[in-house]
């Protein structure tokens, strides 16, 4: 079975230089897509990845990462929008740090791009009808 999941990797400085992602590709045959990469103020590496591959290999790859000292947080479909409750008011647009919300210039509907979302959670309490939901 093939799986595709989005995860946040946080790794200590000593691992920043090591070819971790390369090992995932080479040893576990996983495909990846880097959604975001940065070094935090605490000099921790932060990588948001979309990882795709065989379920068994995927699990092994994750085990490898944990063993290497990487902290993993799942992000797959973490934050979703309840379309019934979204009124397209726009209160979330300037709150989101990654620009996951945009305005359709014609209909003025507020569009949500799940791909850009890093599940920071800032929009959740800022949305008046509570249309944004976190799923763990």
């Amino acid at each position: 079975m093939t799986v595709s999941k989005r995860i946040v990797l946080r790794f200590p400085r000593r691992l920043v230089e090591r070819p971790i992602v390369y090992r995932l590709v080479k040893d576990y045959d996983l495909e990846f897509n880097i959604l975001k990469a940065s070094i935090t103020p605490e000099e921790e590496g932060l990588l948001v990845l979309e990882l795709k591959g065989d379920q068994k290999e995927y699990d092994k790859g994750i085990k490898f990462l944990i063993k290497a000292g990487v902290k993993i947080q799942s992000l797959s479909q973490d934050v979703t929008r309840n379309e019934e409750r979204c009124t397209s008011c726009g209160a979330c647009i300037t709150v989101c740090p990654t620009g996951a919300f945009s305005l359709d210039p014609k209909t003025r509907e507020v569009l949500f791009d799940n791909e850009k979302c890093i599940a920071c959670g800032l929009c959740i309490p800022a949305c008046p009808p509570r249309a944004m939901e976190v799923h763990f």
Partner: protein
Amino acid sequence: MARTIAEINEKIKAGKAVVFTAEEVIAVAREKGVKKAAQEVDVVTTGTFGIMCSSGAYFNIGHSTPRLKLGGGRAYLNDVPAYTGLGAADLFMGANALPDDDPRNRIHPGEFNYGGGHVIEELVAGKDVRLAATAYGTDCYPRKRLETLINIKDLNEAVLFNVRNAYQNYNVAVNLSDKTIYTYMGVLKPHLGNANYSSAGQLSPLFNDPYYRTIGIGTKIFLGGGIGFVAWQGTQHNPGVPRTEKGIPKEGAGTLAVIGDLKQMSPRWLMGSSVLGYGCSLTVGVGVPIPILSEEMLEYTAVTDADIYAPVIDYSDAFPNNKPDILAEVTYAELKSGRIKVKGKDVPTASRSSYPRAVEIATTLKEWIRTGKFLLTESVQPLPGAESGAVIKPLNERPIEY
């Protein structure tokens, strides 16, 4: 040309009324010219869907056996306190009411997940709501405690009564300070990080009848997905503010008090809302039909976002301290472009009220009129106009001598 409401109603009944939304009529006026358009168009429909704090509802719950007197006692609906200063079986729930144990802003900014507005939404949605009441007991109303589920379909009356809705124009909120602030106008980032506005602009009811020529007490409207009426001018109705040449107020001006039977409304158009760091409220849908009685009325309804100005106000200082400072005046066309210029800085904008839902309200009202389901009413008394001298005053605080 001149037309009466009676004539328009005859056309509506015959299924022949020509109706456009306040957005559509702009193009009609542009294409045909005001004169011709006024001859052809009978009604223009407007709409707005936004958080409207001074909203609430009253209920008559029916008498229990033995009887209990709510008046002067205490009552809670889903743990949110209701007002019990009325008679034995009447309650009022305001949109901003909060449960006694809500943490409010103790951990700032508070989330305000559930309050009066949410109770109203749940009732409208047909859900059971917990009523808990205590009373002091009298000879005729001996009971002292009551706990029961109630449902809107069993209530004698459930009436939405909003004392201030549909503000004619509103501030654009920004933050000049160096920390994020949490206001009723939303989250405002420091150093002019963003600008929030709250009006449907060209679609908003009172922008399309700026001098209240047709909207008055008794005007039948779209309210919360059902039918309601203008009950009075809203609180803080302030018609005497500066206006543009076309009569459009350049800041918050007129307001409406509206009323309607909650039982025929829908939760799609009355949504409990949570404003981070501020409180609970109700998002309300209001739409007003404007009869084109003259060319003048057609000209008013053809107003565009580019004709409407709003004042940019600093919510870190000027607003809380009641200072009159206006940082800039911008049009709704600029606001809707996504960026405005304030003090030389490019500031991203966001709305607080929903334009797509305002369009949906105006379109729904248009269909109701076109299909003969909704007739217009003559207002029984106009709202105080710009010439009335009505002004809102700040509170004059006076020391109490003991």
